[in-house]
């Protein structure tokens, strides 16, 4: 398990390759890459700033990975999440999961994203033509997480 919270960008190809070849009996790596969208709720976005809670963030992400690992048969998981000021099309987050068979990696990766979105202490503020604004949490993200508790 690897969790990194950092300001610098990351190399998706390198990270997926490392995760993949670390287990020669892994048949599948499923990954999610999030990028800064140039639009949100109909407004042009020119910049995004990510704040987080140092100390808690890593623990929260590790707890989410541990939950996923207890539910599915997965080999390894990587989460990289950026903080600081980003521009549209910048990468925000990478979640990658390796497993013997694809079903486990798909479920674990989506589970981790759904919990990351609702439990990991990150906050986004965006710049639009009318000024800065904090992004509001979405009910659809809570709903996405709740699916896993049924």
């Amino acid at each position, binding site marked *: 398990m690897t969790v990194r919270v950092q300001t610098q960008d990351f190399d998706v190809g390198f990270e997926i390759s490392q995760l993949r070849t670390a287990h020669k009996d892994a048949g599948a790596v499923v990954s999610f890459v999030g990028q800064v969208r140039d639009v949100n709720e109909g407004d042009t976005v020119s910049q995004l700033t990510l704040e987080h*809670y140092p100390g*808690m963030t890593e623990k929260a992400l590790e707890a989410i990975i541990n939950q996923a690992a207890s539910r599915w048969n997965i080999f390894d998981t990587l989460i990289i999440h950026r903080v600081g000021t980003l521009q549209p099309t910048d990468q925000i*987050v990478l979640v990658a999961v390796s497993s013997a068979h694809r079903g486990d990696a798909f479920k674990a990766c989506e589970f981790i994203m759904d919990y990351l979105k*609702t439990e990991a202490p990150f*906050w986004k503020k965006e710049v639009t033509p009318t000024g800065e604004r*904090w992004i509001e*949490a979405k009910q659809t993200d809570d709903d996405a997480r709740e699916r896993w508790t049924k």
Partner: protein
Amino acid sequence: MKIKLFYFARLKETLKYSTEDLDVPDDVAKTLTILKLKAFLAKRGDVWGQMLMGKLKIRAAINHALVDDNAPITDGDEVAFFPPVTGG
């Protein structure tokens, strides 16, 4: 009772505090919970009341773990208040 407080995102901006060391009075410290602490801090004035006891949804963590309003706070705890998270 001494605790350490952190505020994040919109709360930090509005309260103009990112962290503080709080010496909780004995009458408040007894059976202190997140809700009780919010009510205590809200007495500091308008913006504190609006932020912590108003319409805004506020989440809390004790020692880096998400908790609900009834969670007990003990001496030396690190307590954080913040809006619902929006990472990813």
